């Protein structure tokens, strides 16, 4: 049994150490935010299964490990980084190693003059006006312990600001690579993406382990989508299978904006995603596509919340899970339609296949509707690979392995084909093939 108080104290002691090493940075206005957050953190306790939002996700394996803050980034070669480009995709790339920005490994020159891309630590130091306006304004620390932890340990992450009326055609690849050799390290990627009116951008948030080591990534991303702006966000999570990945994304959307979230996840021993979207202007649209694959003893948990706080907005959510071995999945999709949010259109669906008799999924749609002129639907399915379809394919001469492969691809296909970036789509197809081919060999 883990003593939660002891864990809490451990992180507070890490904070003291962290604060000492901040030197001049502790004089910046941001430090008040950190101090407030560590106070929030001390007052909060880690969630147990008694907490409704964590009912199916037992985080005690995470709490049993005493993580250390990464002291400085280890040397990683350009070749090692290039391995993580999707199908060799040449696009601007921002690279973080163990949470620290690497200027040497990043390549952002083609974006110069079009938009601001820098690490958040620099943006904080220069007191960028966008920081005071947006930073920590969407992801509240006072009631969420992992966000409090993130805010207390703000150090680095990606800061992106697309000014009004800019169409950025190349995707921007933000890579968080972690490698944990001796000590088990903890990093807090903290991202802020601000996309102004009439702009368009595609951002890839990519989390990966350089090796199969034990570490803890606690990421928070805040996204502000301006009026009539278009943002495509892809999260690709392929952390080490022994790592812990806790992430939160908070998106606010102004009128007539369009936000797409593609969430692909197959790493981590335990991974938890809180994806929250709030419509604060009318006529905005959101699309959330998710695909998660788990095997071994992995646990994946997605909690999404779409807050229809304004009228005439529409949201379309499709999450699919493929679970093998003894792995577990959790999907909790909440949609709130506020009283004034008339003419809301909200669609949600979660489909899962269990490839083994020991895999388990808990799926829970939650609709809270306070307006009376809305169109909302939700559905959830859990099943196995269709035996009829398997026999049909085999009767055409297609082998067992290839038939299973075809059906798994087919199951994932409506999420995969929604990914607009070809290289990511191809990369994902390859992963699907490799992952399940290997399994079916026996």
């Amino acid at each position, binding site marked *: 049994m883990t003593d939660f108080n002891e864990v809490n104290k451990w992180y507070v002691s890490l904070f003291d150490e962290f604060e000492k090493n901040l030197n001049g940075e502790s004089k910046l206005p941001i430090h008040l935010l950190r101090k407030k957050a560590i106070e929030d953190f001390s007052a909060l306790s880690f969630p147990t299964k008694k907490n409704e939002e964590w009912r199916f996700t037992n985080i005690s394996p995470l709490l049993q490990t005493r993580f250390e803050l990464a002291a400085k980034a280890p040397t990683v070669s350009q070749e090692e980084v290039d391995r993580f480009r999707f199908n060799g995709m040449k696009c601007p790339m921002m690279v973080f190693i163990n949470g620290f920005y690497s200027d040497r490994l990043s390549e952002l020159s083609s974006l110069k003059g079009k938009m601001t891309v820098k690490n958040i630590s620099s943006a904080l130091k220069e007191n960028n006006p966008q920081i005071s306006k947006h930073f920590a304004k969407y992801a509240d620390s006072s009631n969420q312990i992992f966000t409090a932890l993130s805010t207390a340990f703000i150090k680095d992450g990606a800061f992106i600001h697309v000014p009004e009326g800019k169409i950025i055609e190349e995707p921007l690849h933000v890579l968080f690579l972690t490698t944990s050799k001796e000590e088990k390290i903890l990093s807090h990627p903290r991202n802020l993406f601000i996309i102004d009116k009439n702009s368009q951008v595609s951002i890839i948030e990519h989390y990966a382990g350089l090796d199969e080591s034990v570490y803890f990534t606690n990421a928070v991303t805040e996204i502000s989508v301006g009026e009539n702006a278009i943002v495509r966000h892809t999260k690709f999570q392929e952390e080490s299978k022994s790592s812990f990945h806790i992430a939160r994304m908070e998106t606010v959307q102004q009128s007539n904006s369009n936000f797409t979230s593609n969430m692909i996840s197959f790493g981590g021993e335990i991974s938890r995603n809180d994806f929250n979207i709030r419509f604060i202007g009318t006529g905005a649209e959101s699309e959330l596509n998710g695909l998660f694959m788990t095997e071994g003893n992995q646990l994946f948990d997605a909690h999404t919340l779409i807050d229809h706080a304004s009228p005439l907005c529409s949201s379309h959510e499709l999450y699919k899970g493929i679970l093998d071995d003894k792995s577990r999945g959790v999907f909790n999709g909440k949609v709130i339609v506020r009283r004034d949010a008339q003419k809301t259109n909200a669609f949600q669906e979660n489909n899962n296949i269990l490839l083994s008799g020991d895999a388990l999924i808990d799926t829970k749609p939650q609709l809270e509707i306070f307006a009376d002129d809305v169109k909302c639907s939700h559905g959830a399915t859990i099943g196995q690979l*269709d*035996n*009829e*379809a398997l*026999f*049909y*394919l*085999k*009767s*055409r*001469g*297609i*082998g*067992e392995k*290839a*038939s299973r492969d*075809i*059906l798994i*691809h*087919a*199951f*994932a*296909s*409506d999420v995969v084909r929604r990914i607009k970036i070809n290289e990511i789509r191809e990369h994902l197809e390859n992963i699907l093939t490799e992952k399940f081919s290997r399994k079916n060999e026996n």
Partner: protein
Amino acid sequence: MLLEIKNLHANVAGKEILKGINLSINEGEVHAIMGPNGSGKSTLAQVLAGREEYEVTKGEVIFKGKNLLSLSPEDRAREGIFLAFQYPVEIPGVSNTNMLKTAVNEIRKYRGEEEYDAIEFLQMIKSKMKLVELEQTLLSRAVNEGYSGGEKKRNEIFQMAVLEPTLAILDETDSGLDIDALRVVSNGVNKLRAPDKAVILVTHYQRLLNYIIPDFVHVLYKGKIVKSGGKELALELEEKGYDFIKDNSGVLV
């Protein structure tokens, strides 16, 4: 001899459905298997294709000199058996073309032939489409998803044309087809008749046999073939109904 079924017994969910089937089929022949509902026609078709849920309890099936029952469903297909399903399965997310390309190439690989490249495959496919008057759009659509009943059946015959089996088993391919679709399907089958190939037509109705003329007609009743004859037997059945089999089944065996 292409196929020899000897004293075949099979259970479905613990219940014996096939109770000793004997049947021999030579290259170039078309055999019709008729019989009332529940007589075991579809079970026989599925057992030959290798459906795992159907348990063979006794007997043997020799196909091209090999023990068919020891082969997996995919190896049976690669050896040249094709089953046109009574209820073709819908497979969302898998296009007809992709399924067929995988199938054709797995079969070619098994036979030690070179796999088709994309262009060769498309050329081959196009020539076969004409055979069953299949619309091009059906190719890129998901397998059987949202097809009409007639389209599904035509798609089965199209797949058969592409896979070029030595033994095609058509399981009630005619049921539910209007006369135009029936003509298209029958034409497709007739064009594929060849001296080295054989066809088993499983059907409830004589109507199909006006278009595909069988060499032999067998009547299946309660899991056994109770009467065999030439094409005229189908007409007799049409005239007298299955009741005449039932009344005399004891005598006719």
